């Protein structure tokens, strides 16, 4: 395989990201760690959050873009912060970046136990345009198994509170195919969620990530995975039910009413740039990536002492970038063309080694041709990772 003869630009640029770059802010605090979750988070109890908020703002001054196109507050549980803390954070970020006038989408992740009407109103007043609420399940026993600290009724109440406060765009997060879940019950749960009329639904097949309680329980035999056929039935039932109600599957696990997809996340799948703030947050600027330390204390100290909390960086070569662009881009229903892939990857060698792979997968019926674009076919969709590996191997 020919390798790109490139000068090594192995580090992220030292300084603020280009204006307009999407901004991600990681708030690592949670009421409790969910048993399936592998995102970096710490228990809120006993943690003084003020140094973290101060460090986030100090980090922003040094690295954050002016006028980001989109902003996403994720975690952790951003809604867990008190109104005063949120105000200090959002106002501070506004001073540094001017996001309120610039961003077309500002999402805040919320959990039912920490989202009431007042909190929602504060978030909207501070510049949020979109709230994402973690329902995860409508079955209280399942919520207990997940380690969630709310019940289904609280989730519904949080949703209504957000609407009362004036939230226009709301996403609901759901998890399916958990141990023991009944397919018919899942269809009924989906209907109940749909009846609320959310703008966006993220519905994920449960995964047993490394270093989670669920993975440990799976390995110990305390939990068992539904068999593949059942998972496939869940996957397909979810897509067809949501499609019937007007929610298009614009990504493998993401559904939205027309025009209401999450722009911030679409950028990830298009392999675009982003700047991440906070412990464990990842940034991609130009062709380089880097990530912050996964520790609140370390993060605060590094920002205080060096203004920088990155602990790893990588600069994939042109071919590696092209591979990545393909498998990420194919997660979107819009798919991508070979020319788009090359442009996004910054791949400018004369010969495109991956286009023939796309052609072959299309011949095998796993991809569909739409003009010059390729997208996963109905048969290829549940085999997206298998397809991804073909781009990594070829």
């Amino acid at each position: 395989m020919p390798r790109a003869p490139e000068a090594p630009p192995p580090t992220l640029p030292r300084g603020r990201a280009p204006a307009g770059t999407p901004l991600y802010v990681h708030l690592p605090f949670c009421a409790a760690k969910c048993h399936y979750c592998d995102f970096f988070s710490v228990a809120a109890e006993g943690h003084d959050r003020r140094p973290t908020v101060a460090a986030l703002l100090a980090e922003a001054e040094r690295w954050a873009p002016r006028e980001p196109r989109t902003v996403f507050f994720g975690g952790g549980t951003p809604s867990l912060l008190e109104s005063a803390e949120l105000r200090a954070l959002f106002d501070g970020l506004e001073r540094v970046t001017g996001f309120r006038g610039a961003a077309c989408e500002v999402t805040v992740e919320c959990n039912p136990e920490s989202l009431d009407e007042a909190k929602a109103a504060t978030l909207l007043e501070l510049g949020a345009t979109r709230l994402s609420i973690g329902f995860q399940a409508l079955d209280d026993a399942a919520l207990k198994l997940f380690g969630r600290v709310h019940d289904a009724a609280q989730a519904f109440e949080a949703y209504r509170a957000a609407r009362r406060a004036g939230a226009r765009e709301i996403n609901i997060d759901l998890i399916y195919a958990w141990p023991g879940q009944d397919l018919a019950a899942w269809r009924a749960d989906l209907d109940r969620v749909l009846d609320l009329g959310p703008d966006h639904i993220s519905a994920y097949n449960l995964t047993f990530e490394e270093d989670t309680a669920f993975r440990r329980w799976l390995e110990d035999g305390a939990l068992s995975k539904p068999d593949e056929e059942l998972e496939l039935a869940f996957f397909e039932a979810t897509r067809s039910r949501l499609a019937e109600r007007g929610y298009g599957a614009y990504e493998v696990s993401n559904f939205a009413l027309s025009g209401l997809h999450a722009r911030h996340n679409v950028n990830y799948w298009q392999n675009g740039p982003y700047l991440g703030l906070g412990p464990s947050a990842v940034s991609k600027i130009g062709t380089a990536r880097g990530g912050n330390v996964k520790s609140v204390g370390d993060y605060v100290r590094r920002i205080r002492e060096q203004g920088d909390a990155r602990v790893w960086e990588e600069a994939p070569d042109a071919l590696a970038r092209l591979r990545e662009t393909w498998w990420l881009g194919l997660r979107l229903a819009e798919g991508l063309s070979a020319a788009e892939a090359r442009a996004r990857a910054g791949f400018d060698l004369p010969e495109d080694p991956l286009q023939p792979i796309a052609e072959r997968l299309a011949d095998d019926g796993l991809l569909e041709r739409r003009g010059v674009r390729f997208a996963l076919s109905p048969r290829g969709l549940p085999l997206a990772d298998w397809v991804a590996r073909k781009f990594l191997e070829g």
Partner: protein
Amino acid sequence: MDTKHIRNFCIIAHIDHGKSTLADRMLEVTGAVDKRDMRAQLLDSMDLERERGITIKASAVTIWHKKDGVRYELNLIDTPGHVDFNYEVQKALQACEGALLLVDASQGVEAQTVANAYLAVEADLTVLPVLNKLDLPHARPEVVQEEIENSIGIDAADAARVSAKSGLGVNELLDRIVDRIPAPKGEPDAPLRCLIFDAVYNEYRGIIVYLRVVDGTIKERDLIHMLGTDTVYEAIEIGRFTPTMKRAGELGPGEVGYFISNIKKLGDVRIGDTMTRHKGPKVAMLPGYRPPMHMVYADFFPTNTGDFESLREALETLSLSDSSFSFEAVTSEALGFGFRCGFLGLLHMEIVQERLEREHDIDMIQTAPTVTYKIVLKDGSEVEIHSPGQLPSPDKYEQILEPSARVTVMTPAEYIGNVMTIANDHRGTYVRQDHLSPTRVQLVYDIPLAELIYDFFDKLKSSTRGYGTLNYEISGYAESELVKLRILVNGKEVDALTSIVHKDQAEKRGRSAIKKMRKEIARHQFEIALQAAIGARIIARETISALRKDVTAKCYGGDITRKRKLLEKQKEGKRRMRQIGNVDIPQKAFLAVLGGDEEEG
């Protein structure tokens, strides 16, 4: 240098008994290598050798040792320790007058050490027993001396006692080498004769020939005639290994060193050949080496069919530094063009395969190893086959003969029962049993070589907790009731998976083979049927169900690097894989017809 001040010797030892450490210590105490330049185990120059802790190739080093005010040239010729490399051992032995028999005083004598010690005795070498690891609290030198005497039959009463690790006794050992090992006998004025005992290929300098001068003196600018290959080369550089190559200009009788002539034609240097002066007096070739015996054959196919020529070049280059394997082009219906290679044994096969991949960056698929069968055809003529696919249909032949090995196992006495059980499971015939000491036993069996290859080594190790060691020699051919076991993938026979098995074991081994294949072959987007057949009869079937769902649910910004790593991990091990029909079959599945890690029952 006067021959009476030269000593040529080698070290015979089992893996881990401290041979390389002792060699290192000798280099250190004689000042050949500065302590700060000391890199553990200097003599094992290949990465592979260091990793496996074994010596694959013979190599040489010259050290200078002073005794009673006289400076002696000691040439240590390193020898491989494994049963597969008997040929290399013999070459090295022929270049020496003496051998150190190095035994770990905490472990005792092992089977391969005994075999190599016999070779040294046969080659008329003076054998000096040396007990190592005397610094260990559980060293038991008296018991081990008894074992040496009982197993090899040499007097070990005054065996040297050393600790190669600490250096204890090493100087005294060097003195003893001078005292006890005879000086070489070569005549300085006789016509030149040198023995080629090894060769390596160097990209810049061509072939570096390792030689031992037997008679006369070899000098730079001499025109040298290699008798066996009948080629002539000028001696551009003559030198010694100290251990780095050091130009000497000439080497006299009894000396050991190297010869460089920018030789690029791989076929021109043959290990075991005799070198003499071009147009000088006629000399007799040095007593012949036994040509290497290929006991095990396997086919190598490039993973990418386009790499066939690169594989050929790689095999040619490798055959230069390892003259003991053979290769010839073959064609497989399933795998296309490749090479059938003959090896001294299983370890040798693994090493060649690893060196091809590491040193030549070639990805290959290797078929399960097989032995050479002799087939007596209906008309009474006899043919040899090196591949199960070559076995004619039963109506075409009268009988099949298979090679049998006389196998010697040394084991702690408590495992005798286990060893007997696995010998019986592998069609073994009991020969005898000897007690070497109250705690160690030597068991002798006749076992078909094919059974040794199948999984006898693995089973021996696991049933003796790693303490059992083994040596074998081919004892002849015997008739056996063998049948061809075929494997079908989605109804299509895969010739590269065919094996020859005993009729009584056919069903069990057929079932086990496709069970293992089922584990090795990843699911595809369609169902895959695996079948084992004897003749037209299907004896077992396994199904690999179709892959229906394979998709990561969640994938966001910070997540991307993790998902990518996960995807890449899943593709690991996919490199060595070949597509047959539209099924990707990984290397491991091609070895499924061997035994090993199958579940019992």
